[in-house]
């Protein structure tokens, strides 16, 4: 757990430094994701990494973080108690933004994905 968390945080930290130094509008966590992906690629190809970096611990930490992701949104969501006034004053518009644009977003994305994958069929489709 400790090694896993250290590796994940280190990736995010480098991401934060990268975003700060380059002034690019990239979220630090997304840069961290790319770095960790690179780490997994390197780890499974080269044997010379210290044992603790090759252990399953990192995978287990990531698994836990991904599995419990929904919980992590609760504290920010509870912030609604702080903005009840502004939400009440614009209730219809905000509801429309939350419900209607999300439905549009899902619909447009799913149809585009399906449409394009028919034009560019995956080579050797092996759907699970």
């Amino acid at each position, binding site marked *: 757990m400790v090694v896993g968390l250290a590796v994940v945080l280190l990736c995010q930290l480098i991401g934060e430094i990268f975003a700060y130094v380059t002034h690019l509008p990239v979220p630090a966590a997304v840069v961290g994701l790319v770095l960790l992906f690179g780490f997994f690629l390197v780890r499974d190809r080269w044997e010379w990494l210290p044992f603790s970096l090759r252990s399953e611990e990192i995978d287990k930490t990531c698994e836990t973080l991904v599995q419990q*992701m929904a919980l992590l949104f609760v504290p*920010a969501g*509870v912030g609604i108690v702080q903005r009840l006034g502004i939400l009440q004053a614009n209730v219809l518009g905000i509801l429309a933004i939350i419900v209607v644009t999300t439905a549009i977003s899902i619909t447009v*994305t799913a149809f585009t994905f399906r449409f394009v994958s028919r034009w560019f069929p995956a080579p050797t489709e092996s759907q699970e």
Partner: protein
Amino acid sequence: MSATQGLWAHLSGGALLWLTVTLVVYSIADRLSLLVQRNPLANPVLHSVWVIGVILVASGTPYKTYFDGAYFIHFLLGPSTVALALPLYENRRVVMRSLVPIVIALLVGSVATIGSVIACAAIFNLPAMITISSLPKSATSGVAMGISQSVGGDASLTAIIVVATGIAGAVMATPLLNLLRIEDRRARGFAVGLAAHGVGTARAFQVHPLTGTFAGVAMSLNGLMTAVLVPLAASLIGG
């Protein structure tokens, strides 16, 4: 009586109580959701948010006091986004084979999301502050709050709209995609992850690992895309 009051004052100001409340309420909500076979309406985030909200209002606890305790959980949003590298790595071959639809659906979906927010705001004549704070609504909380701040939005309002969007997406995704007759798990996952970030991705992982992976891919890519597109959209509205 005064001993009880003293104890309450002692506990309610500290991190321990609110961290515990968050975990206990979420655990119960999650167990109930499992009991009803993960019915989308039993979304654990949705029910945890209102239950904790009611507890705060009833006990007269300021949100800031609550958040200081719950911050330990909130902080993990960033690391959990980084951790999405694992399912992405494990499924890299499937993902690489779908690269063209991924890139095009990302571009079209992200533009459609931001465009529909601007259209909605115009129809309902929303104040510019709400519109700007809503632009990054499909990006994951941590990312969206940062974007909102950088374009002069209200980061707390953004967080609420983001979480509400995630819940709405997680609740409507399965019935909506069934209605649209989208059967491809990759397309279903990608759409949910793009529109409803981490809450949608958590929901997608409940349905199928492949759906979840594509949701995670969409969520991280859309975090990036939203960070690029929202400043452009905000400058269009502003000017």
